[in-house]
């Protein structure tokens, strides 16, 4: 039996640089960063003042108020992004195909806004009770569950929480479910809304957030910048997509994952290398075929140096001719959602033949000496691309995508 091919037919985005795929992609191509002073937490209480917040988000246009009340901000993001992806794909979920469909969502922290409110009610305002919907709004599966309810998807629905690799694990698992014949179509991606006072304070304490902006691979980089958002993609069998006459945006061809099993925050180069190698092995391609990597590129001293060293080890001489970029410099590090945003960026890069840049770039750090697409996108048609995610806890997930062709 020949292996089932899995293609992407829809994408949806909520981000600091666009509330749909079109605006998001235009911002990336034009190297427009969404990083700026945040307003949802009082910046005078914080050491760092900048973030990539989603401004003016209004879900009430697309979601009934009675449904909206059940969702924390991260779940609202997922549902809106999922609706965009489904609309683009033209897929209809019904009783016939619903049980052969999956929803897999990544999130690192779930409904922290509802949780924060319980702290405020109890510890600050000395109330004796909290909102009755605090549990369904806080639970990390709130996004996946609400997406399945809105879409009528009755097959495998679950949430993956692997910190900053969550969405790549979610997309990769959905890809394998379809390729292995367990499902025929899936909605997968992730969402995150980290701008609460307690959570920002926790990031402040661990000392990896930049006081200015996110400058991946630059000598002057000072750390990551938190972002919020959601990316959701519709994927299905090639056969399905063709039968429906859907526009195919890209093919998903490989998924590799590994665990460092070494340190809870310090990444191990060997783990990153293994995940990239496994993704290419899964896709049955060799290193010379990769034309672009959407790097994890957090902008921290440790990650960027480790990641470039890992890429050079895996790709050998081909690394000299291999463009990479970190789009986190524009949409921020949206934690459990970040690799869903980057997956969409990679899909669009393959589709349009444009490689998105690394914004805010200054001077190359010698330990990151690669073609990092500094401050400008590049027109270049490529056939295969990787999207890397290396999480706290040493959990790595890498996806391989292919430009769509018969």
């Amino acid at each position, binding site marked *: 039996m020949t292996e089932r091919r899995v293609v992407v037919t829809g994408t949806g985005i909520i981000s600091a640089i666009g509330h749909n795929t079109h605006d998001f992609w235009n911002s990336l191509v034009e190297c427009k960063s969404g990083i700026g002073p945040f307003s949802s937490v009082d910046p005078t209480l914080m050491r760092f003042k900048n973030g990539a917040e989603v401004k003016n988000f209004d879900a009430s246009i697309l979601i009934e108020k*009675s449904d909206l009340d*059940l969702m924390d901000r991260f779940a609202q993001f997922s549902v809106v992004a999922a609706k965009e992806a489904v609309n683009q794909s033209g897929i209809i979920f019904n009783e016939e195909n619903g049980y052969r469909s999956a929803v897999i969502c990544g999130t690192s922290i779930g409904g922290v806004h509802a949780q924060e409110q319980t702290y405020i009610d109890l510890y600050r305002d000395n109330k004796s*009770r909290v909102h009755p919907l605090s549990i*369904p709004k806080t639970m990390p599966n709130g996004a996946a569950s609400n997406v399945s309810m809105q879409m009528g998807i009755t097959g495998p629905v679950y949430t993956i929480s692997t910190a900053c690799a969550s969405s790549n694990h979610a997309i990769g698992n959905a890809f394998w479910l379809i390729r292995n014949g367990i499902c025929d179509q899936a909605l997968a991606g992730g969402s995150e809304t980290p701008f609460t006072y307690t959570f920002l304070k926790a990031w402040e304490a661990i000392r990896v957030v930049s006081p200015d902006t996110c400058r991946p691979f630059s000598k002057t980089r000072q750390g990551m910048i938190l972002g919020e958002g959601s990316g959701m993609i519709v994927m299905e069998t090639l056969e399905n997509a063709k039968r429906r006459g859907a526009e195919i945006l890209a093919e998903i061809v490989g998924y590799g994952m590994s665990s460092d099993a070494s340190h809870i925050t310090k990444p191990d180069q060997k783990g990153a290398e293994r995940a990239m190698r496994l993704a290419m092995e899964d896709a049955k391609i060799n290193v010379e075929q990769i034309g672009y990597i959407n790097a994890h590129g957090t902008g921290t001293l440790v990650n960027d140096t480790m990641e470039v060293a890992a890429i050079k080890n895996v790709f050998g001489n081909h690394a000299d001719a291999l463009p990479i970029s970190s789009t986190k410099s524009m949409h921020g590090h949206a934690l459990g959602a970040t690799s869903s945003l980057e997956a969409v960026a990679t899909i669009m890069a393959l589709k349009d033949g444009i490689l998105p840049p690394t914004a805010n770039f200054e001077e190359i750090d010698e330990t990151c000496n690669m073609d990092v697409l500094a401050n400008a996108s590049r027109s270049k048609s490529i056939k295969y691309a990787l999207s890397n995610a290396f999480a706290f806890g040493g959990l790595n997930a890498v996806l391989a995508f292919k430009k769509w062709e018969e």
Partner: protein
Amino acid sequence: MSESIFEKIATILSTKKGIDKESILIESSFEELGLDSLDAVELISDLEDEFNVTIPNVELQSIKTIQQAVDGLQKAMGS
């Protein structure tokens, strides 16, 4: 007192759930008003806050109509 409780319930349901105030009657069941079990928990929770009382869980689960909500509140207030 029961009239002010009823008035409060009608206000909560019309503002939070978008139910037409005219359609809310003392004898209305939650089901008739399109309220599910989670909506009922929300309503009782709001009423507990408003009147600063506590309704035990077992009693809350047996409240299925506006009348029962009013009675439950009055009982909790000891009136």
